[in-house]
């Protein structure tokens, strides 16, 4: 057992689960989507990205790429939320809610790919 691997796997899976938790619910109803969960998903995703730095293998490069995609999507979702709530005229309306949730849905897809890669990598290690 390797504690580095545990932490690595933990953050990648946690990024996916938090993202999923935020994503699930009616797409146009913002009350189904918790802002704390979005915050947690974003922070965990950022940490997962940093953990992937510096692995120069091909797999490591793909890991980093998927993670960067997830970060980007979540940051855009958060920015839309902040803008709609504070700067926008009408608060978080249906339009804004749909945009936020669908962006997080994209991040979810990237996180799923990340986890699939993690599983695939684990399968090749027969120890």
């Amino acid at each position: 057992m390797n504690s580095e691997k545990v932490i690595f796997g933990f953050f990648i899976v946690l990024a996916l689960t938090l993202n999923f938790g935020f994503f699930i619910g009616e797409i146009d109803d913002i009350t189904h989507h918790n802002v704390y969960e979005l915050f947690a998903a974003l922070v965990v995703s950022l940490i997962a990205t940093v953990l992937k730095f510096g692995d120069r293998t091909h797999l490591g490069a793909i890991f980093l790429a998927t993670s960067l995609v997830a970060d980007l999507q979540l940051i855009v979702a958060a920015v839309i939320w902040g803008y709609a709530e504070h700067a926008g005229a009408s608060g978080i309306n249906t339009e804004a809610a749909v945009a936020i949730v669908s962006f997080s849905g994209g991040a979810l897809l990237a996180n799923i790919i990340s986890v699939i890669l993690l599983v695939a990598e684990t399968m090749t290690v027969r120890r």
Partner: protein
Amino acid sequence: MPDIFYILLRRLRTPIISLILIYAVSILGFVLIPGQDNDGNVWHTSFFHAFYFVSYTASTIGFGEIPYTFTDAQRMWTLVVIYLTVIGWLYSIGALLAVLQDPAFKRLRAEYAFGRSVRSLRTPFYLVCGYGDTGSILVKALADVGVKSVVVDCDENRINELELSDYLRRPLGLVGDAGVPAVLQMAGITSPYCKGVIALTDVDKTNLMVALTAHLLNPDLRVLARAESPEAAANILSFGKNEVINPFETFAGRLAMALHSPGMYTLYTWMTGIPHEPLHEPLFPEYGHWVLCGYGRFGKALQHYLEHAGIDMHIIEPDPAAQNAPPGTIKGSGTDASTLRQAGVEKAAGVIAGSSDDANNLSILMTVRELNPDIFMVARQNRQENGIIFEKAGFQLIMKRGDVIAHKIFALLRTPLISDFLTTARTQDNAWANGLISRILGVSTDEVPYLWEIRITRGRTPALYKSCLKHAVSLFDLMRDPRERDEQLPVIPLLLKRDGETNLLPDGQQILEVSDRLLMCAAYPVHREMEWATQNENVLHYLLTGEEVSGGGLWKTLLQNY
């Protein structure tokens, strides 16, 4: 870049993660702690406001308590946030600076920058391994004639010295072992712009490795290697088309030449001179008894050459037994008067201070000067830095090892005709050399004569190439002055090479043919005039016929048709 960039990020993993965590905790705290608006109602800070507040607090900008004055609970949390974020940033920036200053990382960065510069080179360059005395003289000479060089040396101080030099064509330097193929590959040994490799390190084995690497990675590359032992020389010569230079043999051979045929020596020095170097007057040492101090590798080579030239001498050596000195060798360093007297310095024609220690050499010659002020003094200067005092001492001949070898290599690199010329000239006698020297003195200024090659080809000398196909062009015609054709340019044709045959000092009546190669010698400005005639059809036409023509291609075609 990518490699270094990712290494940097990997090294900074912990500081970045701690920053993310510190920000996350701070923001979350503000969102959870309730505040009050101006009317006393409970007001929850949103993530947006919290992020805004933490951002300006962490960067120590501090806009104040926005949007409403904080409650005491919020202020307590603000205290925590301030110390937490400031420490977090200090730690992260400290870690970043530590990584950037790390010697290993710095070397990686330097290597990366070097590799990129080598890859982006789009001009021909020479790869010089070893930047000692010889290497530095050679690199400077190459830079002066506008040829780029890439230098590899294992001594960091020497590479720093190179970086600080102010050459027009700045050479690229890398700290690394030239014996490692990967280092040479990074230095561009496989680059199509690499014209040759010059291995000048002090270690024969490294030079052999450089030659081998060049032969295997880029077989067409020209390799010049320094080899001190005959075995290493034979080894390097055994594969590829390498050229080997033995520093002691070359140096001793040149010195012996200076003693027995000074004219030839002067000719050699001028022919291998670096452009714009001051011209040294020829020397005339006397025949007679000579004293040689120091019987190391150099002394042995020198004795061999001098014996061959029939010069009688006495040897002084501190440790005759260990150096296998011939019988009759006087034991001593030569720095004291008694050993020098014993060797007959008072009646000798000349003395050679040839030890590998500059201080000893100077001291020997100072003592000799006291004993016999009229003696011909030859000093061996080992280190370039000591040049100032050697110049000041006023010896008749100063032999600088680095100089002799660097000049020889430089001449080999410039045009192969120089080496052909010198080989052919070697078969002539000293009187011939003296005659040529006075001719060269007649055409040159106070700088060493400029040597250049004229090759009659379509690309390099289009005008001359066309004329040679149509009419008979003599060497005499080519040497006319483009401003007044009845006058001759002050230039000496040294060598004509045709189909592998060399013709020393070709006659003016010689008719030139396509693909001839000529080695010319003149002052630098004259070289430009001659290049003009070989490339410009109108100028050449005037030289050949005396008719002035002008006009471009269209006018010429019209004239030809009518």
